């Protein structure tokens, strides 16, 4: 165990010794800064501050929503109207736009972290081959299995670090631009069984968690490709391509029942929460988790077999 921690330290040291890793954090902060500026300058953040007679404001909003829906057939504001009515009925004053709302709105940025994680996962093995350092790495009294898993765990540690960074920097940037009203405000939103009140913090964590599923699966896939072919370019290309086309492919084949066994039909667990519905009716949360676990184990098994059994031959 002690030397596994040493291996993790080594991997983290190698990651953070390169500018590429730092640039990922810088890019994340940059994206949030730009997002905050856009909302601040063009957004409706300021308009949504509700005054003393907020109930009248909400009623007026609902009337506007109704007008628009009558004019345009395809635009529905049912859930917005319901949420506003809920506020009025239960005498809950809506929170103005603040750092928490900003953080929640930008939870989607964790998709970028998926991209970064894929890049790191794709390089962590193949770079050792490229640099030639794999030879010096594998002639130590440590099994190849341990080295492989230390690298995999390091990728996960880095991606969790980036998520924590994203959360903190969102709150900080949000607080600077929009202020912060309370420490853990509640949020009224449309849930699976109608309108519900949830803690905004829980909601942010849920969003991050759901994106984490996709992140881990694609990173593991990239890790496998990189171990198998010792090429980071190929691993990055393939993983990102599949990440973006995966859902489209699923939509094409959704009419067939076997489509539910495809990885990408299951990576978005959000389909079982809130007002989502599964891509294929016969799918359940338990089913998706089982499929994900099977793919996960399979990817790692392939990586492990190819890494431990293979000869380290010349360049």
């Amino acid at each position, binding site marked *: 165990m002690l030397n596994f921690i040493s291996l993790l330290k080594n991997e983290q040291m190698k990651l953070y010794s390169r500018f590429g890793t730092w640039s990922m954090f810088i890019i994340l902060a940059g994206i949030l800064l730009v997002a905050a500026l856009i909302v601040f300058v063009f957004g409706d953040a300021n308009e949504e501050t509700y005054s003393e007679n907020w109930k009248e404001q909400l009623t007026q909003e609902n009337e506007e929503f109704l007008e628009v829906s009558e004019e345009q057939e395809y635009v529905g504001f049912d859930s917005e109207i319901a949420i506003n009515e809920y506020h009025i009925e239960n005498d809950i004053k809506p929170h103005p736009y603040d750092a928490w709302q900003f953080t929640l709105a930008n939870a989607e940025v964790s998709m970028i972290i998926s991209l970064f994680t894929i890049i790191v996962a794709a390089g962590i093995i193949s770079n050792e081959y490229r640099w030639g350092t794999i030879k*010096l*790495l594998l002639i130590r*009294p440590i099994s190849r299995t341990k080295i492989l898993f230390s690298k995999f765990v390091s990728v996960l540690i880095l991606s969790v670090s980036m998520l924590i960074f994203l959360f903190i920097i969102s709150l900080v940037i949000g607080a600077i631009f929009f202020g912060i009203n309370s420490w853990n405000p509640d949020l009224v939103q449309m849930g699976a069984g109608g309108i519900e009140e949830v803690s905004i913090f829980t909601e942010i964590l849920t969003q991050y968690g759901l994106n984490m599923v996709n992140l881990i699966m694609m990173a593991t896939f990239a890790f496998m490709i990189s171990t198998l072919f010792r090429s980071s370019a190929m691993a990055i290309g393939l993983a990102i391509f599949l990440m973006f086309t995966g859902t489209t492919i699923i939509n094409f084949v959704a009419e067939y029942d076997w489509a539910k066994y495809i990885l990408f039909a299951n990576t978005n667990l959000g389909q079982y929460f809130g007002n989502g519905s599964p891509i294929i009716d016969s799918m359940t949360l338990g089913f998706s988790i089982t499929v994900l676990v099977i793919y996960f184990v399979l990817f790692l098994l392939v990586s492990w077999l190819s890494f431990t059994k293979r000869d380290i*031959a010349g360049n």
Partner: protein
Amino acid sequence: MTTSMELQDVHKSIGNKQIIKGLNFTIKKGEVFGFLGPNGAGKTTTIRMMVGLMNITSGDIKINGISIKNNFKEAIRHVGAIVENPEMYPFMTGWKNLKHYARMIPGITDERIKEVIRLVGLEKAVNEKVGKYSLGMRQRMGIAQALLHNPSILILDEPTNGLDPSGIREIRSYIRNMAEKEQVSVIVSSHLLSEIELMCDRIGIIKNGELITVEEVQDTSTENDDVTVKLDLDDNEKAMTILQDQLELETKIVQERVVANLPKSSVPQLVRKLVEEDIAIYEVAVERSRLEDKFFELIGENTIA
């Protein structure tokens, strides 16, 4: 224990092709063993099997009696190695690179790392990024990482590749030092005889995956061995006549030098004679050509890169 490493009928096949066809030899404790052969003879493959980077198709390699095949972790603990070029992480400092490898073996203190850095003379450069190092410095870093855990066997694959003459000399003296003072067994591979002849006790010659011969390298030939003597004299004609008539030696002239073959024990007599005859002697060079001849004979001159 006097045997450091033992190769037992080692075979390696890749696909249907046999690359190593049954190697058998042992390396003694405190010995510098040269592993010589033309490029592509199987030197690097053999070394990669010794350190567990490649699987052994059949046979076994034992390090201090422990099989690298069945007990990799225990066996490799005693080995320090450079396989081909000493590649390091270019974006990290020398210190971090060494720290990285030190963390992988229990019990290596920062003190030990400093000691090794002093040994290879990299004190000044250790806080610079390895990417800025010269090839010679990287080679020394390579040796430093191999020595971190006080190995009893040091394996160096082409350690002088790409080094300038002073670098080669430096490496040579390190290696001799390690063997003589620390009783470390050293295995050095090369495709150049001239390079390893000077630092090895024994040289194994490999060709097409087979060990052709293992030769002792002797610093001093025994009394009865024939040696070739090259003489730089002021009067070659006179000297040749004297040597032929009085000592009954076959002589010839090569590159303005008088060359003769004679038993080593007769060399002093030859010198005395020339002095008596009042011939000025600028140089008497005794050549140990035996190994070189044998090498060329076995390998063929053209195959040496």
